[in-house]
């Protein structure tokens, strides 16, 4: 989905605020949320793909105005409610107020790509173009590379395709590649010519130019 989480290349966020000698967790509730999320993973109540997509489905204003571990809390609560492990009524009764959850998945609109063939389609040095895909479900193809030309610099083997794994228990593995994009290809002439971005992309995101 073209969600607010897909931040690469956006302007207007201002400086990066680096905290000196930062603690691993800033508040006790962050430790709790980290542990709860680990527990639901150990209980197989989520996988990394469903979890990331649950974060992506957050209301965009809530996403940008809340911290990283509040994203985790919202996603974990959302998945547990969607699976029927807890109810929103139970959560809100216990919290004594509103429990914001992510927006629902629209599974009827999601198309699931097919697995890769036995051998990878591209090799180191292959020129590729990123397909101009805008799936409504989960994807790991950032918007800023769609339609852009790059060159494969590494072939990493086959991994479960997140676009399927976030929505289905079907096993769908595809080859993943590291693709190098020159700065000018991504950002035009305004950019630094001696900068490149390397992005890891699954096979169905790519095509031959």
């Amino acid at each position, binding site marked *: 989905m073209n969600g607010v989480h897909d931040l*690469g290349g956006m302007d207007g966020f201002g400086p*990066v605020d680096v905290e000196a000698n930062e603690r691993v967790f800033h508040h006790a509730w962050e430790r709790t949320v980290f*542990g709860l999320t680990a527990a639901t993973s150990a209980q197989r109540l989520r996988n990394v793909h469903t979890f990331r997509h649950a974060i992506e489905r957050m209301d965009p204003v809530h996403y940008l105005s809340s911290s990283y571990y509040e994203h985790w809390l919202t996603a974990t609560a959302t998945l547990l409610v969607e699976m029927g*492990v807890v109810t929103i009524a139970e959560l809100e009764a216990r*919290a004594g107020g509103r429990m914001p959850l992510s927006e629902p998945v629209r599974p009827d609109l999601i198309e699931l790509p097919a697995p890769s063939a036995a051998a990878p389609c591209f090799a180191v040095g292959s020129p590729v173009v990123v397909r101009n895909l805008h799936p409504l479900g989960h994807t790991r193809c950032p918007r800023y590379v769609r339609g852009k030309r790059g060159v494969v610099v590494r072939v990493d083997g086959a991994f479960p395709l997140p676009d399927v794994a976030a929505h289905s228990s079907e096993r769908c593995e595809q080859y993943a590649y590291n693709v190098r994009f020159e700065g000018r290809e991504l950002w035009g002439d305004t950019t630094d010519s001696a900068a490149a*971005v*390397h*992005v*890891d992309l699954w096979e169905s995101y790519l095509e031959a130019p």
Partner: protein
Amino acid sequence: MSGHDDEHHHPAPLSPVEVRARALEELLTEKGLIQEGFIDAVVSAYENDIGPMNGARVVARAWVDPAYKTRLLANGTAAIAELGFGGPEGEHLVVVENTPAVHNVVVCTLCSCYPWPVLGLPPNWYKSPPYRARIVREPRVLLREMGLDLPESVEIRVWDSSAEIRYMVLPERPAGTEGKNEAELAALVSRDAMIGTARP
């Protein structure tokens, strides 16, 4: 119920997010989905044992042992496992080497993927919208803002961890460190040098 020790010093009412986290923790405990002590056990590993001191040992070893460095750049996961490091978010590690001509920097624009076994959990700035939005678009400008002024002649490579690979930067060994031993060298390697927003 451990994990709330800090709040004993703060009698103020809990914030909404604290209330929500506690509500979920209580419900999952009542339903038998979390055992007493589980959260502390998981979290304490990341507070005490898993952090950038691990990555610094990898870097120092690569600086003193050319054969190790060759293995590290060829297969990061296996070479890092030689020092005993691995685990969640470290299943597929790639180490990218800085040279006089090339500087590497790591990001995850879509979420906050990060090589936990060698760097621990990411700092807030790495997870923040400004870093994730800007480092791919204007890396030289942003690195300069963050205190790393690279000459125009140095190529910058930004690695967006968008799939299963997690990246760590191997910084250049600083000049004048010939007499230092491995432990002294490790002490020179910061977390940010291994992300690529600083140099040792």
